[in-house]
């Protein structure tokens, strides 16, 4: 089993999982906040936020990667802030790949969560308020549980996007084996080497399997939620 993939491919697989995991974990709270603001907020700049969130979806990934390089590179203004405050360096590290994955997955995540928030009957939140629940308690006990299928869907979409991100990643942190060479980058590399095609195909199968499993698991979880409500 272990020699079905070479050591370099195993490394790429684990790296991809790591990158997608951290990207999803860190973008989820921001994703929920952005979705909540877009679904419920009526504030100045709401449309600007909407455009900003969705830009990575429609811009060429290379442009996103280039902007990340400008902003979060070692000499970029945000890159310096992160290095000094948190000791986190993004340039040509796996952390940079995770940042690129997070940014690219963000619109998908926000969209799914926003749709589920908009589908919630706000009358329920109002009712919870009249029963003495503070805003925070309403969020915790009514809004979040009811938005849960959408949050789940957004998480899976964000994770899947993170697993497969290519353009922004390769532009921002390049293609360094063991550091930034994720699954997608690895497949691309293999396709350019003579005789690398069988391995590339195996990696493709692996990525398809991971995506399928993620979708099925999220579907099952969402079904459990809705089935309980219907009884």
């Amino acid at each position: 089993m272990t020699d079905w993939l070479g050591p370099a491919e195993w490394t790429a697989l684990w790296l991809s999982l790591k990158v997608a995991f951290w990207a999803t974990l860190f973008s989820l709270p921001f994703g929920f906040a952005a979705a909540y603001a877009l679904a419920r907020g009526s504030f100045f700049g709401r449309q600007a936020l909407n455009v900003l969130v969705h830009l990575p979806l429609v811009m060429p990934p290379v442009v996103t990667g280039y902007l990340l390089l400008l902003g979060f590179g070692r000499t970029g203004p945000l890159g310096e802030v992160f290095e000094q405050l948190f000791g986190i360096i993004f340039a040509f590290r796996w952390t940079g790949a995770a940042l690129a994955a997070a940014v690219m997955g963000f619109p998908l995540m926000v969209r799914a969560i926003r749709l589920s928030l908009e589908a919630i009957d706000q009358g329920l939140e109002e009712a919870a308020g009249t029963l003495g629940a503070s805003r925070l308690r309403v969020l915790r006990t009514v809004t979040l549980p009811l938005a849960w299928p959408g949050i789940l869907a957004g998480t899976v979409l964000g994770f899947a996007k993170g697993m497969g991100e290519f353009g922004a990643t390769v532009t921002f942190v390049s293609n360094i084996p063991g550091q930034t060479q994720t699954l997608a980058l690895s497949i691309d590399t293999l396709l350019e080497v003579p005789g690398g095609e069988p391995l590339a195909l195996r990696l493709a199968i692996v990525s398809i399997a991971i995506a399928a499993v993620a979708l099925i698991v999220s579907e099952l979880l969402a079904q459990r939620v809705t089935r309980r409500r219907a009884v």
Partner: protein
Amino acid sequence: MLRVSIAKEFAGFALDVTLDAPAGVTAIFGPSGSGKTSVIRAIAGLLACDRAEVTLDGRDLSKLSPHKRGVGYVFQDARLFPHMSVQKNLRYGGIHDEDAVVAVLGLGALLDRYPAALSGGEKQRVALGRALMSAPKVLLLDEPLSALDAPRKAEVLPYLEALRDQTAIPILYVSHDMGEVARLASRIVVLNEGRVVLEGTVEDVLADPAAVPFLGVRDAGAVLTGRVVGHATDGLTKIETGAGALWVPGAVGRAGSTVRVRVPVQDVILSRSAPTDISALNVLPVTITALERGAGPGVAVALNAGNARLLARVTKRSCDVMGLAAGDQIFAILKATAIAPADVG
């Protein structure tokens, strides 16, 4: 005592309402669009107003956010949390008087169910219980029965009556169904186009001839309180009221119990002489106290019957032909079938 004074400008509509609600049920009655729901939403803090003074027993609620007002609210559409069992829904706002609430509202068998598996009537009972268990100091009911069909209404009404008899807090009951109002409320506030046009006890307001245009010909009519004397074998019930003994259809109440009888204006016929050989069972000697000529073809006639008041509506033509005037002693004929059992409570 709940004191409310609110004002708000809507597009093409101005709401300006001041009202007092003591302990007991105060009905807020009016056509749709008259601002009934806006009033109680403002009391609950759910509607931002230009002026919103809400005090409860001298305590100012106006500045508090909704969750700190201690106001129970039952919405027209129940608004149960779909992801919680009935029991969790009930306990969401607190567990005040849990056993009593569950017993009074008959919720024992529903506790483990989810809202999706409840009928409309059951949902409203749970919503009512949920509001009660949060130990509210004011209860706001926004047409809690309007989404229900007649059998479900009949199922929930007795619970509302039990609630009225067992709580000592102000209850505001928004409704456009005069049958419900006559059955449940002791006071009534009539709204029209965002303003209070009538306010007082149900007996006073519904016997006021000036109320007819605001209540509508179909809903206007006096409410009498009476005691059930007994039930006849032919299916009628005899009720002793301040206006005299009345026969109403159906077996209503237990002998000796107190009930309300509604006498819609349209179901009262006036006669100069004591009628004989007619099918109506209820003929009462009455004295005209006032006449109120409306804008249309009708005249509202206020009547004294014994120590109670009745209201009739006749056409201007009949009024003129009969030469009706205040002080005249005449007879009122109420068709026994005209007093629907659902309106007797």
